[in-house]
Each structure stands twice: as structure tokens, then as C-alpha cells.
């Protein structure tokens, strides 16, 4: 609402501005120019939520990790890194999550690229590609157990056709977890890549073709450079999902051996040994490793062109 002081003064007695605004209008105006106004109060619930449900538990866990039952403040960390059985879970986790995230992104790109534009059956195909995300890891793992297990359909078919003498070991190992992560992670990567792709102006592709660029060159020289920052973000998000893998590592993996990931180590520390300090320390190690990977990817992303990808400047 705009006020016309000159006009109102002649019609109604002037009222102090303080009454109307509840503050010095000059200050309010100056704050508004800096983007500060009362609507920011709407952020308070979200902020409370963040502080109470994330920040406080996180800091509590951080504190806990420095309060081991015995020894010095860093005893939990020392134990973790001194014991190869614990320490190696970092590599185990990275060995599963990095390739799974990479494969998800790499597989999503050609499929999303091919699915640009309009065509018959696009919606159905998208639904089919995205359905696994709605099922959750447990149901996926359940399905894998039934399908790929020693008495699962696949092995029964292989045996019937005499393509194998004995059931092929497809689950309860690294491959089982990896496959499960791809099944659940791919839809996520696909949806993200698809939305990044749709943000790239399609006339750029047309322009490149009139300049003599074939399909591969158009992708390589125009689409990919504009898509790359989005791919970095997609990789980070699918990596985070894969890194905290727990259900599938237990259900279709080999949780005592090849797929003993960080989250399993933390779980065992907390609920089998009741060593909350160790569990918290493992969680912190997990966070640091994740942040290092994401930091490296974002560092690379920073070297890319990240401006507008539309046709208009």
C-alpha cells in the first residue's frame, strides 16, 4: 500500500508513522533494501526444525565421539584407524558407492538424452524408469533375493538351459549390493539429468547442426559442456545416497566381509557393542569422507561453465 503524505495530511490529521509500522520506517526501509523484512520470520519453523533435528543431534554425536569409555579424547578415532577390520570399511564403502554413483550418472545421460522432446509412450517409459525409486531399498533387495538367489528364477532358468552346472552366486556379495544401488539410484539420477537437459535450449542443438556438427559433435561440444555442472550435482546426490547404504548391504550383501560398509560398522558399534562413542566417531568419519568426495567434485564443477544454458543472454 502506498501512502501519499502530502494528500493525507490535508484530509486527516497526520499520525505518527511509528504507530502504523511498529518501527522506525527509515530503518525498515533500509533493511528492506538489504533484503531483510518481516517475511523472513516465515523461515523460523524451518530453522527450528534444522537446529533441533539436525544440528543439535549432529553436535551431540560429535561431542560423543570425543568421549570414549576409556582413554583420551581421540581414543575412538585411534581405535578405528588402528584396526584394519574397522579402517577398511572406508574403502569398502567407497568401492561400492563411487562406481555405483558413477554408473547411475553415466547410464542416465544417454537415456535422458535420447528421451528429449516429445514422442509416443514417453510418459509410460518415464514411469517405468522411475518406479524403482518408489519401492525403497528393502523391497528392491527382497526382489533381488527372489530373482537372483540360488533358487531364484534366473538361476533356475540357467540350470534348466544347462548354461550353468550350479547356481551362480549373484547376491550376498559385492555385486548384489552394487546392483541394488544401481536399481534404486538410477531413477534418481535419471530424473535429475532429465530436468537438467530440459533446461538446455533446444535451438542450440539446431544451431550446431546448421554449423555442420553431427549428432556426436552436438552432444560433445554443446550439450555435454552445458550439462556437466548438472552431472556433477547429480553425481554428488547419488553418491550420498549410495554412501549411506545399509539395508541392501545387509540383505543382499555380505555384511561380515566384502560389503561391510561404514554404516554397518557404526551400527555394530552402537547396537552390538554399545560403544556410542565409537559409533559416533564412525559416523563422523563417514561425514568427512563424504564431504571430501563432494568437495572434490564441486571443485571440478567450479571450473565448468555454470551460467545460463538458454538461448537468450
Amino acid at each position: 500500500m502506498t501512502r501519499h503524505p502530502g494528500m493525507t495530511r490535508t484530509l486527516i490529521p497526520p499520525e505518527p508513522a511509528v504507530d502504523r509500522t511498529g518501527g522506525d520506517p527509515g530503518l525498515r526501509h533500509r533493511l528492506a533494501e538489504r533484503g531483510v523484512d518481516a517475511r523472513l520470520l516465515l523461515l523460523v519453523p524451518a530453522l527450528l526444525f534444522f537446529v533441533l533435528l539436525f544440528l543439535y543431534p549432529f553436535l551431540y554425536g560429535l561431542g560423543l565421539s570425543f568421549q570414549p569409555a576409556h582413554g583420551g579424547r581421540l581414543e575412538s578415532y585411534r581405535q578405528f584407524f588402528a584396526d584394519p577390520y574397522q579402517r577398511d570399511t572406508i574403502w569398502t564403502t567407497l568401492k561400492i558407492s563411487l562406481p555405483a554413483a558413477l554408473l547411475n550418472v553415466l547410464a542416465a545421460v544417454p537415456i535422458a538424452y535420447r528421451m528429449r522432446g516429445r514422442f509416443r509412450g514417453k510418459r509410460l517409459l518415464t514411469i517405468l524408469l522411475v518406479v524403482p525409486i518408489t519401492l525403497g531399498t528393502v523391497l528392491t533387495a527382497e526382489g533381488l533375493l527372489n530373482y537372483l538367489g540360488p533358487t531364484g528364477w534366473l538361476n533356475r532358468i540357467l540350470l534348466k538351459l544347462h548354461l550353468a552346472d550350479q547356481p551362480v552366486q549373484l547376491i550376498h556379495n559385492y555385486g548384489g549390493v552394487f546392483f541394488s544401488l544401481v536399481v534404486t539410484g538410477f531413477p534418481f539420477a535419471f530424473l535429475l539429468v532429465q530436468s537438467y537437459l530440459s533446461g538446455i535450449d533446444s535451438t542450440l542443438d539446431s544451431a550446431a547442426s546448421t554449423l555442420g556438427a553431427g549428432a556426436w559433435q552436438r552432444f560433445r561440444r554443446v550439450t555435454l559442456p552445458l550439462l556437466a555442472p548438472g552431472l556433477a550435482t547429480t553425481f554428488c546426490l547419488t553418491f550420498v545416497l549410495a554412501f549411506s547404504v545399509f539395508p541392501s548391504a545387509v540383505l543382499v550383501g555380505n555384511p561380515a566381509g566384502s560389503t561391510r560398509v561404514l554404516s554397518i560398522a557404526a551400527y555394530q558399534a552402537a547396537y552390538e557393542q554399545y560403544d556410542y562413542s565409537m559409533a559416533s566417531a564412525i559416523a563422523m568419519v563417514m561425514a568427512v569422507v563424504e564431504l571430501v568426495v563432494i568437495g572434490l567434485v564441486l571443485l571440478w564443477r567450479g571450473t565448468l561453465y555454470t551460467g545460463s544454458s538458454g538461448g537468450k543472454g
Partner: protein
Amino acid sequence: MAISIPRQFSELRLAGVGRRFGTTTALSDLDLTIRSGEFVALLGPSGCGKSTALNCLAGLLPLSSGAIWADATRIDTVPPERRGFGMVFQNYALFPHLSARRNVAFGLQMRRLPKAEVRRRTDAAIRLVQLDEHADKLPAQLSGGQQQRIAIARAIVLEPALVLMDEPLSNLDAKLRLEMRTEIRRLHQSLGLTTVYVTHDQEEALSLADRLVVLRNGRVQQVGTPEELHTQPVNWHVADFMGYRNLLPGTAVSVTAGRAEVTCGGLRLAGAAVGPVGAGDDVIVGVRPDDLGVGAGPNPVAAVVEVVEYRGNDVAVEARAGDGTALHLRTAERLAPGDEVTLTSDPARLLVFPADPDAAPSESDSAPAAPAEARS
């Protein structure tokens, strides 16, 4: 790299070119021969099929029917990247992640030319559009006019057999649009380009093109030089588009030797019949604002001035005749709203068109699209 069409052609022939989208026909039966060195403008309101025609020429849209020939080579099945035609897009379509220089160099690099030659030709093209100082900027750092110049440089650096321009000036402001118009014509002449230019702005088309193709609802209405279209539109749709702002529905009373007597509402006018007009036919009378005079003369119509718009050398006037017909004219006379005037027109400049049975000039149809607002 194999270029499967001749680098230059003496003529490009579109034979019965058509394009359908689902059940709608965007373009039908376009026959057009473009000679080397010519500047052809495709003109029409939005949705008339002009951009479809251009995209068919570029190879970005496959044809539904017809064929395109470059001399004796059929090219409509050649993919765009092998046609060797340059294209300038309405939204410039510069690669946002590449500097202006690398945008211009893109096509040369696709041809795998030696680095030195790429560099030399890129620099020359950038100099041609006078953007040497801005060559290393990204498109987002350039103004709209500069971006469009880079887009033009990028298209012509390949010395294409044909340059296609899709409303290249419609995103620019009025002043810049005039400057770029001159620039495009200058480049066309000095480089000996063959240009096909799509626009909905008849002034732009008239001033740039050697030949105009007026399209409506996917069909060619008229092909001719700017002067032919300006003075002899073949139907009232073309007349509408060429600035015949007064289009009055009426009935022919008598037609003798091309001269038609017409009643429009309460007015009785004499004009030149265009096309088959017989006594008793429904007609549409078209006359330009410039061809309506004030004072004594033929076809006198008494009217009252309602609106006067100052235009510098003259004024644009809307006057209302006794029967309620609104008439638009331009005059150097100092008129004011409320003045009673007699409007006159030369019967030779008052064109009498047969009214299409299915289409009468409606409000939305009769106002020629203003360049700034017709497309956003």
C-alpha cells in the same frame, strides 16, 4: 568432410513443399525458386508457415511432401549439418559456454580446417560485424544487438550457399532494429550472399528483400517485388498485410472494364477491381491511409475527425463517415478532433477485392501486426 551439395548453386527450387504437424497443415504446396544472390523475404502473420518453411529449408524439419533442389541435386533429405546453409535464429542461439570468438569459430572447426585458417577467417568475420573488442566475451556479457551480430558472423563465416534468417531482429529495440537492418542488407550485398529472411514486419521485408513471399495459413498468397506487393496486392489479405489499413466490406454495384462501383454501408465508391469481381458480389475495398486525401476530388466522403496522432511530418487521423465507417488517413493538414472534412481517393488507388466467402476482415485480422508487439 564430405559436403554433399554444391558449395554454390545458381538456383534453389522448392517444389510443392508441405509440412503437417499431426492433423494441422503448417505449410502446403510451396513453390518457390530462389536465385543465387537474391534476398527473399517470407512474410506473414504468426502461424502462417513462414518459420516452418525456413526450418524445412535448413533441414531442421523433414518435409511432409514436395522436394527441394539445389540446381540438379535434391537436398531435402540431406541432414542440416551437411547442407552447408547458415542460419540465424530469433533468439540468437549462441552457445552460452563459448566466447564470441569460439562461437564464430565453431562451424569452421566442425569442418576440420587448419587452425591458422580458422583463426584468420574467424577474426575476419568478427571484424566484419565490428565486434573485435568483444571477441573474448561470453554471449551473456554482450548486448542483444552484439549477440545477434555474433550470430550473423557465425553463420556467414562458413561462406554458406544460403543464409537463413528467422526473425533475427524481433528481439531488438526499435533503434537497434533499424541499424541491424541496414547492416544485414550491407552484408548481403558486399558478400554476395543468398538470403532467405523470415519476418512478420512488412516494413522490414519491403526494405530488405528483392522479392517477397506473402504467406497465410500455410499457403502462398503472392510472390513479387516489394513494389508489386505494395501497389498491386492480389487479395485483401495481402493488402491487409501491406498496410491497406482501410478494408471496408461492401457490395459491387457495377463492374465495367476493371472499374468497379461499390457500396460500402452508406458510402458509394469507385475503384479498380482486383481479381474476379462481378456486379452484386460481396467485395472488400482497400485503400491505404496515404491514399486518402482531404478536400475536393473523386470519391468524396463526408467524415468527422475523431483521433489525431502526431507523426512528425504528418498526422495519422481516424475519421468517422456519416454511416459510422471508421477511416484512417495520413495528412499534412492540421486537423483537430471534431473537424468536419471531405475525404477523397483516386479510384485507381482504391482496390476492390472479392471477399472470400469464408473470411471477412475481422477486428483482429484487419490491424497490421505492429513489429514490437506481434511476437514477444
